[in-house]
C-alpha cells in the first residue's frame, strides 16, 4: 500500500464497509454502532441505583505543609456519607508507576497545586462539592521550586522530596536514581569522541511548553463494594493491571478482592497511565458500603492527570562542509513536576532518541529529569521524543542553512537505514526508510497558492484579521523516530485468552485480553487477527478486565504489536488443538489441514467446525513477549534498549500573517512506514490524529504555569485545534515488514505526533526568517512583541 490513501481534494472515491474483516482489511469497529447511537458506556456514563458521588478536595497551593485538617463541618452537611483523609488510607499511603512517591491523599505536605487532600461522598454532586468546600485545611505555605535546572542545581536546598522513594516492582527499567534531592534520572549517552570537532557548527537552545493530553472523556469511574469485602472498579484507564496493583497496595487488599473492568475510554494519549480517581472511589465505596461514582469536570481534569514534560534543550551539531554529521552534543532538561510518574522512562526516550533518526559517529547526550513543585508530568503520546524532535529538527534546518544545502537533502544524506548504528550502540535490524519517507514527501505536489479570498482559509479565519496583507507561505519538513513498546530491559508482555466453540450452530471465537481500548481500535485488530488465524467470522471481544493476565499498557505504540502478538499466538495454539482433533477424526495428517470459513479443510475435505468441536470449547491462554531488551549502561547509555523503531516524516505548508503573528496551516503531508497495516483505515486515522496533536503543540497548546500555579485549566484558555485549524492531509503509508514483529507490523500511534509539530515550526521559520526556538509559537514570538 504505497499509493496515497486519500488526497485533500475531496472524499475518497468509495468507502468500503467492513470487508472480510481480516488482517489488512478496513474492518469496522465492533463498538462503532454503540458509539454512534450514544449507547457506548464511558466511565462518566456509569450509573447505579443508590450510588453516591465522590468529589476531591485539592490543594490550592503548589507547596505547603498541612498543619491540620478539620473534616467536621463537611460531615455535618446533610446528604454526606463519608469524608476521608490520608488517615483513612489503610494500605500504602503512596503509589506511582515507577517510584511509589505520590500520596493517595496528601500526608503532611502538598507538593503541587491540585494535589488531593480529602474526599467526600454524598448523594448529589452539588452536596459533595459544598461539603468539600467546608473542610478546613490549615496550610503553612512554602515557596515552590518551579525551575527544573534550578532544582537540580541545588540538590540539597529546598528539595521537593526529603526521603528516597522505593522503586516499585512496576519500574520499567533499572533507572539509576539519585537517592535524595531533586534528580529523578540522569541518562548519559556516550558514543565516539566526546570532544570531536567539525568544519561547521550550529548551536541552539530550545524550549517546549507543557502540553496536555486533553482527552475529551473526563477521568471517571464507578467503584462498587463487593460482598467479600473487596471492591469492583469500573474505570476508564490505559493499563488495568498496573492500576490493580496500586489500588491493592493502597487498600491493603489482595488482587482477588480488587477486580477492575475497563469502562468506555474517551481518549487517553498517556494521560490515563497514572491513577486518578481509582483509589479514591474505592476508599469511598468501601467506607460507605455503596457504589461511588467519580467524574472530574474539565478544570479538575487539568489537575487530575500528568502532562507532557516541559523541556529546555541545548544542542550543538558539527558537520563536514559536505554535510556529513560529525557529532551531536545535547543537554536536555525535563521538568517532571512534583512526583516521578514515568519520568525515568521519559528521560530514557528523550535521551536515546534525542538526536533523531540520523547516523552520527560522535554523540554526547545528557538528559535529566527533575522534581519541582510544578504539575506532575509523565506519559503523553510521543513520550520524550516529541520534545527533542523540535530541537534536533530545528538544528538540522539551521545546519542546512549554514551549509547552503537543501534541508531534505541534508536529512537524507545523514538518514538512518537498515543496518545503521544508533547512538546507543544498537544496529537497526529492520527496515528504516527514512530517506524514502522524505523523498516521497518532497515529490508530492504543493497546495495551490491562495485564490479568491475566503476568510475561513486565511490566518485568523472569520475573525477578519487579514485579506492577504502580511501573509507569507512557508514549507517545512521533519522526521520522527520513536521506540515501539517498552524498552531498557522491561519484561514487556501481554496475555490473551482465546476460546473457540460453536454457539447456536455458529463457530464463535471469544478473545479475552486486558488491553485497554482507548479509541485507537485495538478491539477491531483483535477481531481481525482471530478471524485471520482461525477462519471464523464471528469474533466476540470479551469485556476488558483483570480476570485475565496483564496486557501491559495501551501506550508506547505497543498494543497491536504486543497484544496483537499474544492474540495471534493464542489463536495459533487453539488452531493446533482443533486441527489435531480434526486429524484424529479424519485420519488426515495435521500438516494437511487448515481452518477456513468455519470449516476444517484439506484436499477433498470440508469438515464443519461443529462436527469437530461438538459441545466442547477449545481455549488457550498465553503470555507473549517481544524480543528481550537490555538495560542501558549507566555510564555510556549503550545497550540493546529498544525492540523496534517507528519512522514518519511530515511536510507542513503554513501561511503566516507575519505582521500579526497569526497562522493558518494550509496542508500537512505525512509519510510513514507501518510495516504492515493491520487495519489501513485505522492506521490512517492514527496518522491524522497524531498530526493534529503535534500541530496543536506547535502553535497553540500549553498548560501555562506561573509560580507553580496553572493559569489556564479550561478549554476556554487551553486551546486545542478545531476543524478550522487542522488542514487537509496527504498521507502515504509504506509497508516494509519488520521480520521480528507479528505480521511484520510496526507500532503506529506516536510517530506522526512527533514529526508534525517540528515540520510546522520549520514552515513558520521559512515564512518569517525567525529562529523561533520556543513552542508553542505565540503571535508575540512572530511579531517581536
Amino acid at each position: 500500500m504505497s499509493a496515497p490513501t486519500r488526497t485533500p481534494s475531496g472524499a475518497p472515491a468509495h468507502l468500503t464497509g467492513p470487508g472480510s474483516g481480516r488482517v489488512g482489511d478496513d474492518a469496522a469497529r465492533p463498538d462503532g454502532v454503540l458509539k454512534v447511537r450514544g449507547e457506548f458506556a464511558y466511565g462518566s456514563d456509569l450509573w447505579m441505583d443508590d450510588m453516591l458521588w465522590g468529589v476531591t478536595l485539592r490543594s490550592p497551593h503548589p507547596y505547603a505543609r498541612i498543619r491540620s485538617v478539620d473534616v467536621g463541618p463537611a460531615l455535618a452537611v446533610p446528604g454526606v456519607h463519608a469524608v476521608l483523609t490520608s488517615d483513612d488510607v489503610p494500605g500504602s499511603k503512596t503509589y506511582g508507576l515507577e517510584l511509589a512517591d505520590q500520596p493517595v491523599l496528601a500526608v503532611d505536605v502538598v507538593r503541587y497545586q491540585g494535589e488531593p487532600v480529602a474526599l467526600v461522598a454524598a448523594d448529589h454532586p452539588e452536596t459533595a462539592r459544598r461539603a468539600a468546600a467546608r473542610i478546613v485545611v490549615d496550610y503553612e505555605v512554602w515557596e515552590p521550586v518551579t525551575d527544573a535546572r534550578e532544582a537540580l542545581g541545588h540538590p540539597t536546598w529546598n528539595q521537593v522530596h526529603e526521603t528516597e522513594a522505593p522503586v516499585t516492582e512496576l519500574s520499567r527499567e533499572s533507572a539509576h536514581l539519585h537517592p535524595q534531592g531533586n534528580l529523578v534520572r540522569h541518562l548519559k549517552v556516550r558514543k565516539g569522541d566526546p570532544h570531536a570537532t567539525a568544519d561547521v557548527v550550529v548551536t541552539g537552545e530550545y524550549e517546549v511548553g507543557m502540553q496536555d493530553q486533553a482527552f475529551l472523556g473526563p477521568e471517571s469511574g464507578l467503584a462498587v463494594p463487593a460482598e467479600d469485602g473487596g471492591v469492583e472498579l469500573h474505570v476508564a484507564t490505559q493499563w488495568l493491571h498496573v492500576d490493580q496493583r496500586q489500588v491493592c497496595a493502597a487498600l491493603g487488599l489482595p488482587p482477588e478482592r480488587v477486580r477492575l473492568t475497563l469502562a468506555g475510554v474517551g481518549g487517553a494519549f498517556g494521560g490515563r497511565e497514572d491513577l486518578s480517581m481509582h483509589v479514591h472511589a474505592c476508599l469511598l465505596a468501601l467506607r460507605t458500603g455503596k457504589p461511588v461514582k467519580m467524574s472530574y469536570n474539565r478544570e479538575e481534569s487539568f489537575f487530575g492527570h500528568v502532562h507532557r514534560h516541559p523541556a529546555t534543550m541545548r544542542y550543538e551539531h558539527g558537520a563536514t562542509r559536505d554535510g556529513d554529521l560529525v557529532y551531536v552534543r545535547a543537554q536536555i532538561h525535563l521538568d517532571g513536576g512534583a512526583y516521578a510518574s514515568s519520568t525515568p522512562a521519559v528521560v530514557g526516550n528523550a535521551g536515546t532518541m534525542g538526536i533523531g533518526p540520523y547516523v552520527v559517529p560522535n554523540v554526547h547526550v545528557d538528559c535529566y529529569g527533575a522534581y519541582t513543585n510544578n504539575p506532575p508530568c509523565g506519559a503523553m503520546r510521543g513520550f520524550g521524543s516529541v520534545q527533542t524532535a523540535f530541537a534536533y529538527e530545528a538544528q538540522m534546518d539551521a545546519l542546512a542553512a549554514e551549509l547552503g544545502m537543501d534541508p531534505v537533502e541534508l536529512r537524507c544524506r545523514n538518514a538512518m537505514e537498515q543496518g545503521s548504528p544508533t547512538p546507543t550502540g544498537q544496529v537497526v535490524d529492520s527496515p528504516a526508510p527514512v530517506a524514502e519517507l522524505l523523498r516521497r514527501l518532497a515529490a508530492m505536489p504543493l497546495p495551490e497558492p491562495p485564490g479568491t479570498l475566503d476568510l475561513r482559509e486565511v490566518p485568523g479565519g472569520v475573525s477578519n484579521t487579514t485579506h492577504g496583507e502580511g501573509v507569507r507561505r512557508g514549507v517545512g519538513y521533519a522526521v520522527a523516530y520513536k521506540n515501539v513498546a517498552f524498552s531498557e530491559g522491561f519484561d514487556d508482555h501481554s496475555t490473551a485468552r482465546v476460546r473457540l466453540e460453536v454457539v447456536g450452530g455458529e463457530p464463535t471465537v471469544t478473545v479475552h485480553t486486558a488491553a485497554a481500548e482507548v479509541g485507537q481500535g485495538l478491539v477491531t485488530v483483535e477481531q481481525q487477527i482471530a478471524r485471520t488465524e482461525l477462519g471464523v467470522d464471528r469474533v466476540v471481544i470479551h469485556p476488558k478486565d483483570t480476570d485475565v493476565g496483564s496486557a501491559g499498557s495501551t501506550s508506547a505504540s505497543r498494543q497491536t504489536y504486543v497484544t496483537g502478538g499474544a492474540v495471534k499466538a493464542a489463536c495459533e495454539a487453539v488452531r493446533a488443538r482443533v486441527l489435531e482433533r480434526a486429524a484424529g477424526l479424519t485420519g488426515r495428517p495435521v500438516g494437511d489441514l487448515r481452518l477456513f470459513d468455519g470449516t476444517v479443510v484439506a484436499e477433498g475435505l470440508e469438515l464443519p467446525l461443529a462436527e469437530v468441536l461438538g459441545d466442547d470449547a477449545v481455549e488457550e491462554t498465553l503470555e507473549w513477549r517481544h524480543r528481550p531488551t537490555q538495560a542501558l549502561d549507566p555510564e555510556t547509555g549503550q545497550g540493546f534498549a529498544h525492540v523496534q523503531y517507528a519512522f514518519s516524516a511530515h511536510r507542513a505548508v503554513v501561511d503566516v500573517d507575519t505582521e500579526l503573528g497569526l497562522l493558518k496551516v494550509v496542508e500537512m503531508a505525512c509519510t510513514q512506514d507501518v510495516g504492515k497495516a493491520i487495519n489501513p483505515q485505522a492506521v490512517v486515522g492514527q496518522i491524522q490524529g497524531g498530526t493534529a496533536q503535534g500541530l496543536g503543540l506547535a502553535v497553540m497548546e500549553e498548560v501555562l504555569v506561573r509560580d507553580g500555579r496553572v493559569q489556564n485549566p479550561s478549554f476556554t484558555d487551553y486551546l486545542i485545534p478545531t476543524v478550522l485549524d487542522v488542514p487537509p492531509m496527504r498521507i502515504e503509508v509504506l509497508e516494509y515488514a519488520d521480520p521480528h514483529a507479528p505480521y511484520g507490523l510496526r507500532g503506529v500511534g506516536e510517530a506522526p505526533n512527533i514529526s508534525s509539530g517540528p515540520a510546522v515550526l520549520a514552515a513558520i521559520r521559512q515564512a518569517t526568517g525567525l529562529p523561533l526556538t520556543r513552542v508553542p509559537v505565540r503571535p508575540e514570538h512572530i511579531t517581536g512583541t
Partner: protein
Amino acid sequence: MEFLQPATWAEALEAKAASRDAVPVAGGTDVMVAVNFGRLRPSLLLDLTRVPELQQWDTEDGVVRLGAGVPYARVITELGDRLPGLAMAARTIGSPQIRNRGTVGGNLATASPAGDAHPALLAADAEVEVASVRGTRRIPVTGFYTGVKRSALADDELIAAIRIRPPSGPQQYSKIGTRNAMVIAVAAFGLALHPDRRAVGTGIGSAAPTPRRAPEAEEFLAGELDGLWDSRGELPASTATRFGELVSAAAAPIDDVRGTARYRVHALSVMARRTLTWAWADYRKEATTCA
C-alpha cells in the same frame, strides 16, 4: 437556589425588583459556565427566555431596536445588512451552538472587556435600553461599561434592547485569537465610517479594563477624511498608519494568559490600519457602483 421563569417583561422587572441579587440568564453561555464550575450560586436564576419582547427586533424611526434576547445567529442571518459591524462580530463568537443561544444583551450584562459585541456597538454609537419597575432609560453604550465586568446597570434593572442606527457607510470588525475559530479575543477592533455625519466610530475590545473608543483616532481620521468624503479619493497610506497608531494609543492593556500588553497594542494598530483600508476601499467601491 431558586429558578423563576417570567412570561412577560413586567413580571421579569417585578422579579428583579423583588430580588436584586437575582442573576438573569438568557443563553446561559456565561452564567451556566459559572454555575457548572461552582463559581456562581445566586439566590435566584431569572430565566428571560420566555419573555417574548426580548426575542424580537424591529425598526423604529430608522433605528434598529434589537431585543436583548435575540441570539447572535439571528443577528447574522436577519440583520447582516442593517447591522454589518455587529453581524461580523457575531460571526466570530464561539461556535454555531453558542451563537444559537448567546445574546447581545448577555454580552452587555456580563460587560467583560473581552466581549465580542462591544467594539461593534461602540463604533456604531449604540444605545442600551434598560428598564426596571421604575421606568425605562437609554444609556449610550460609551457610558455603559464602568469597570471590569461592571456596567451602569442598576441592581433592579434588566437590559431590554440595544438601539443602533443602521450605517450610512462601511463598517468593519476584526478580532485576534490564537486559534482560527472559537476563541476569546486577545484584542478586537470595530470601525464604522459615518459619511452622513462626516464622522468615524471606533471600538476597542480586550485591551483595557473596559471596552472603549479611541476618540483621538476618530477625530484625527474625521479630519483627514474631511476632503475625501465627497471625492472618495485614495486614502494616503500614512493616514491609515497614523490612525492605527492613535487607536493603539487609546488602549490600556495588561499581560495575561491570552497575550501580552505589547502584542495587544501592536495588534490594534495593525487591525485599525487594515480595517480602515478595507472600509475605505468599500466606500470608494460604493461610489463606483453608484456611478
